[in-house]
């Protein structure tokens, strides 16, 4: 009788072990089973070396020739903390495609770019607000291109534009850029 109880307890423990998926070693000295449910020890895997991509694709927005829409152009940029800043500098450099037009003055520089509370705060050099650069059509595209390029990054929901460290009122005299702006899907034209 004593032996029966011991067998029963062991059997019970073993069943619980199978159901909960523990390895036999954890519940005493029961022999390994051959029904395939026992956990086989995992082979040690060499830790994968972190693969650093040379470049990553980033969408940068440029204007269409009719000055009504923005179209995304994919540029290969170096990953890292400067990625967003590079995206904006690419925006100032202008498009590869002759089907698109630049929307920022070429000499525009990014002085700093930080993301705080899902808001990108981007500080431009005064070249951005160069007098006589654009009319309202260009200004709409410029503001939307900055905001839409930065909100391509999942950590950015809104964009605060600064010029020379201060909140800018408008860039070329029309668009209100004093408060943070969010993505404008309506101005994007899908090719």
């Amino acid at each position, binding site marked *: 009788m004593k032996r029966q109880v011991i067998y029963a*307890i062991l059997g019970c423990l073993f069943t619980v072990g199978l*159901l909960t998926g523990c390895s036999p070693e954890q519940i005493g000295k029961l022999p390994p089973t051959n029904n395939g449910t026992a956990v086989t020890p995992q082979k040690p895997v060499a830790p994968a070396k972190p693969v650093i991509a040379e470049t990553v694709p980033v969408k940068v927005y440029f204007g269409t020739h009719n000055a009504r829409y923005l179209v995304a152009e994919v540029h290969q940029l170096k990953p890292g903390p400067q990625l967003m800043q590079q995206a904006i500098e690419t925006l100032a450099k202008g498009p590869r495609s002759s089907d698109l037009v630049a929307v920022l003055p070429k000499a525009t520089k990014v002085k700093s770019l930080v993301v705080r509370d899902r808001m990108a705060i981007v500080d431009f050099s005064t070249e951005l607000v160069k007098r*006589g650069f654009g009319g309202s059509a260009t200004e709409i595209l410029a503001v939307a291109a900055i905001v839409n390029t930065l909100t391509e990054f*999942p950590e950015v929901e809104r964009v605060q534009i600064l010029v020379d460290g201060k909140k800018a009122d408008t860039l070329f005299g029309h668009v209100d850029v004093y408060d943070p702006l969010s993505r*404008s899907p309506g101005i994007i034209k899908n090719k």
Partner: protein
Amino acid sequence: MHRRYCLSWLIFLLLSLVTGIALAAPAANATVSITGMRWGRAADAVTGSQTIRLVLETSAPVTVDQFITAKPNWRIVLTMRGVNVDKLKITPSPDPSVVKSMSAVKSAKDTVHVMLELPAELKEKQYKVFTLKADPKAKRPFRIVIDIAKAMPVTNVEFSTGLRGKLIVLDPGHGGTDPGAIGPRRTHEKNLNWSMAVKVKAILERAGSTVLMTRPGDVDLTPASASDRDDLRVRTMVANNRKANIFVSIHHNASVNSDLNGTTTYYYPKTPYDSVLAQCLQTAMVRGGGLDNIGIRTANFFVVKNAWMPAALLEIGYISNPQEEQTLNNPAFQQKMALAIVAGIDQFFAQAAKMRGGR
């Protein structure tokens, strides 16, 4: 002896199976938790249209049913099954003119209703509910997102027909050290804007309107140290302080593409009248001026947004287009266009009088 052994073995086997199921049960029936919430504000970079966003963060994907009801009050109701809100801390709405408050109540077992109390009617198009997947790279959990548009405030402004007795603010864009856009023949936009405004003013005054200009001539409205915003704010202040009936800003467009041409009118839909004013002016300008019709567009432009009365910003033509630059400099063309603008303003008062506050 042997049979008894087998029996106890079976009993224990059964018992352990039951235990196993009992152990597994909570896992299979686990509820998803709403772990957090946050409010956000968005302003479309192009149109300036404002939205309040509510994000509910969940521990796993959730299916959401939603509807909007007028009774007892306007509210959006989201229904989720298998969801637990015990850990949710509700924070107040950042803008009670869009969402008054939010609450979450449990009805049946594990069914939760999230209710957003609205201050007024909301049309189907003015809100949307969607879910987003977790994004480990950006450290974001699964989310339920509710976007609600900030509606136009109800206005009690009414208009009468005719130009006589009206107070109209004309805003010749740029000026002083700000030339605006510059054409290929070195036409400064500020000068064209001024020439047009002077002509419009003369015609309106003959028709019995009082006209205020936002700048007295080719000058800066603020000291050189002040920002453009101060300059633009001074322009809208003139109109707001004097309670003008309408605000019309006169500009000329420019683009890096010198082929572009045509007339366009911008507005900010802050009252039901703004789009009507823009459309009346656009129709009249295209008819009278004969330039290509690019249509009316909403834009987050400072002056039309911050002038309290119905406002429009005219982009009469492109000075970056060599041919159009020449046309725009022609005094006969300017006179034709000025007459068209006044006809558009007259047409606006006629239409606005029928709207009775847009109700």
